[in-house]
């Protein structure tokens, strides 16, 4: 339970930080925001790596598929965001 309350504290505070940060993103950049936030939500790759390393073979298989999914998010998300942001230029 103590563990849960600690995690809940982090969760609630992070939601508030999230609202503060996202309301400052201008509509101009809302599409890169969505692809970029998908990239960072690929952080599940961390949990997937731990799952692969467990002795349970079923967990390993689920973990491997999860790594593929999460890495698509990480690599695809950061790359496509970078590609989009590169198009936003200011002339003169």
């Amino acid at each position: 339970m103590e563990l849960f309350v600690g995690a809940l504290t982090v969760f609630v505070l992070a939601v508030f930080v999230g609202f503060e940060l996202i309301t400052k993103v201008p509509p101009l950049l809302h599409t890169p925001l969505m692809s970029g936030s998908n990239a960072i939500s690929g952080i599940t790759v961390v949990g997937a790596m731990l799952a692969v390393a467990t002795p349970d073979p079923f967990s390993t298989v689920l973990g491997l598929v999860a790594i593929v999914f999460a890495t698509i998010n990480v690599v695809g998300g950061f790359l496509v965001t970078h590609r989009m942001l590169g198009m936003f230029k200011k002339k003169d």
Partner: protein
Amino acid sequence: MNLSLINLAYLASAVLFILALKGLSHPRTAVRGNLLGALGMLVAILATFADRNVLGGGTEAFVKILGAMAVGGAIGAVLATRIQMTAMPQMVALLNGFGGGASALVAGAALADVGGHTPTATFLIATGLSGLIGGITFSGSIIAFDKLQEMFLPGKPIMLPAHQAITAVTVLAGLAMIYWITGGDADTRVLAYGVLILLALTGGVLLTVPIGGADMPVAIALLNSYSGIAAAATGFVLDNNALIITGSLVGASGIILTQIMCKAMNRSLMNVLTGGGTVSTPGASADDVYAGKVKATSAEEIAMLLDGAGRVVIVPGYGLAVSQAQHTVRDLANLLESKGTVVEFAIHPVAGRMPGHMNVLLAEADISYDKLKEMDEINPSFQETDVAIVIGANDVVNPLARTDPKSPIAGMPILDVDKARTVVVIKRSLSPGFAGIPNPLFALDNTLMYFADGKKAITDLIAAIKDA
């Protein structure tokens, strides 16, 4: 590596993710922000490789992990470099789906690995929620992708008889499975989780098929939020702060974008989700609004009008992107600017097919981002605008939203183009937009209609200006 050190590394990556989002507050800092985010991910992955449990898996686990990363990385890289900017909503839909899927899989793996230990109730509930939300996100995103890509399903809403009831029962049954997970022994738990995933996948389909093609911006933003919430739930399963923090950030982002889209479309979230569509209470008929009042014009006449104009505002709609006319419009803007005219673009929040989409499409055509003005910023300046050129937009410039409280678009925020000295509307015909109602803007004294395909009209207009 020491567990505290690994957790410190996760803290560092969470801070880098926060800086990444902070960087997105301005185009000048956005590229660096994105790179910081990627650095944060690298830190988290390297720290996890050093985790005792991953090291304990030996070379075999190491090779498997790298192999799976190579496969995912290759798919991601191909998607990111090949995707057309017009197809960005599909790309984001897919990423949402993979994010939700990964969360559901990781939670399932954690549950299967519990073995003989007695897991806590919070672990089991978090696992169930992760599976439920992750599964809904996965299948819902696949349906959203299909609708956007117009592959198998029609763009229009699909409703089964008693659709809402079936959806509600499915999701409730999923919640009941979570109760089963918390009560059972090891084998029962895994079985219940399997049933839960099937229910969640069904629920995701049921929740997304009634959403119409035009409402997809809301659906994608909402699924974006779900994928974040699923990741946060997985963070509770693994007691991993990096996942909890990141998931909350993404969840908050998706919720804010969902709200913005709903407001801009003048719809409640419930109305979008239930596929209600806009209820047309037929107001004035098209004949009453347009008869004898619509003035058609020609490229030559517009060219004369633009000659000597001090300020021109271009209002692009999605029709412009569909006809790939962004580059032609940029040429027009450059030509007018070379004659000393101030040219700006007025971007309605739902001008594209996802939040911010139109900005990306215009930036791709090399239009300077400081000329892309959002609605609240540009609306007060229409009074000082000599010519407003509307290309492929309709409902978002319909003054009925301000004037007729009974109209289906009453209260919807619109671009006040009717306040410009002259309005030029480039459109193939007088056909209505998504709202299905006539637009009195087309019949105003200061409005000129140029009936033509967007791209051809702009090309002809450029030629006429050069001839003049």
